[in-house]
């Protein structure tokens, strides 16, 4: 189903932070997919509207997990839904993370804020097949300790290297303080044989990509998940253009060598 939402039932919800909720959706019949890590769905809140949301966990049976931050009418509507409510879903859409190109490489997963959500299924996929990859580094940045997503799962991502840093420590926080790029000095990777997956605010992604390229990663092996306004997800509405790219179709994952000249043009 790509043009008409397929009804799903919200089976469980978990409040991650003050403004962010993770919920699981189960198709009422059939199901969509399969969704690859980094791909997204259009989620329809009844009578309010539709927004693109990356999958943050998939299962083989059509169930989808999404993490939504309440920042607008639709996302707030979705975050407020109780278990049992219906959600319309279209998808899967877009290019996901190119994990196949990273086989045998050291991996750098760098997330900022809600940007961890589209990276979680990638981490799941790597952990399901650890022998296929080199060292996994998970670097997570958040605003405050209270804004951290998936807190219960973070410890499992600590080996061989995983770290969390916050902009503003609070409440007895004993972890790292500072930007996520500061953690790169400690990550375990051979730049000539590494692939990076980066998702977060655009400024954070550009800073991270620059640092990685400075450290010797080829720009084409730094993958960013970009965001623009998306209305249709099917390449027809024109809203998500970034120069030559229709991000709904040619993204959201774009390698930095392709993204860099576009992101540096103001208001492209």
């Amino acid at each position, binding site marked *: 189903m790509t043009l008409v939402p397929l009804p799903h039932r919200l089976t469980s919800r978990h409040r991650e932070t003050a*403004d962010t909720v993770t919920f699981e959706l189960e198709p009422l019949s059939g199901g969509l997919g399969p969704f690859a890590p980094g791909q997204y769905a259009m989620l329809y809140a009844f009578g309010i*509207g539709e*927004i693109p949301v990356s999958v943050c966990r998939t299962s083989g049976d059509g169930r989808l997990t999404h993490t939504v931050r309440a*920042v*607008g*009418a*639709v*996302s707030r509507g979705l975050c407020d839904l109780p278990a049992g409510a219906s959600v319309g879903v279209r998808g899967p859409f877009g290019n996901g993370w190119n994990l196949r190109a990273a086989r045998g490489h050291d991996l750098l997963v760098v997330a*900022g*804020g*809600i940007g961890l959500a589209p990276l979680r299924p990638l981490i799941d996929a790597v952990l399901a097949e650890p022998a296929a990859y080199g060292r996994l580094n998970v670097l997570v*940045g*958040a*605003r405050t300790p209270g*804004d951290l997503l998936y807190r219960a799962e973070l410890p499992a991502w600590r080996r061989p290297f995983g*770290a969390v*840093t916050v*902009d503003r*420590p609070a409440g007895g*926080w*004993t*972890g*790292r*303080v*500072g*930007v996520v*790029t*500061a*953690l*790169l*000095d*400690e990550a375990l990777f051979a730049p000539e044989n590494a692939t990076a997956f980066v998702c*977060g*605010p655009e*400024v*954070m992604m550009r*800073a991270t990509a620059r640092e990685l390229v400075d*450290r010797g990663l080829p720009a084409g092996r730094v993958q960013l998940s970009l965001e623009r*306004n998306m209305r249709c997800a099917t390449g027809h509405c024109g809203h998500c253009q970034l120069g030559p790219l229709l991000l709904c179709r040619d993204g959201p994952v774009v390698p930095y060598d392709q993204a860099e000249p576009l992101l540096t043009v103001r208001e492209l």
Partner: protein
Amino acid sequence: MSRPAPVPSTGLIGSLSPGHRERLLALAHEVDHPASTRLFEEGGRADRFWIVRTGTVALDIHLPGRGPAVVETIGTGGLVGWSWLCPPHEWHLGAETRSRVEAWQFDAAEVRAVCAAHPEFGLPLVTLVAETIGRRLRATRTRLLDLYGPQPGAPSP
């Protein structure tokens, strides 16, 4: 019985040429601090600096009524302290170990003297320290943007 900490391949030490690295490390004193050790205090004389080999150091500032507020942490390979480089050689923050910290400690006056006597070593070293300061400044500016926080302006979908 402590294992020898590795020489970091990143950060300031990793960026020095092998010859300059050897020269700098010749000036180093190995130190090993337990967690919660105060390394220096705001306003104190900046007569030393450190390069972290393992562990984490927190930079903090004392706020009346709130105690020390951590503004940044520095991990493996990181340079702790740069106030030693420029007059008046006074710390503008405090520093405390967050875990056990193994580090190379340097005597600031000694390093400054070697730099002055051997500019072919001093210039690259000072340039690397400036790079470190620059990177921290950029990071601080990024944090000023509060990128992960709620965005002011128009409502979004």
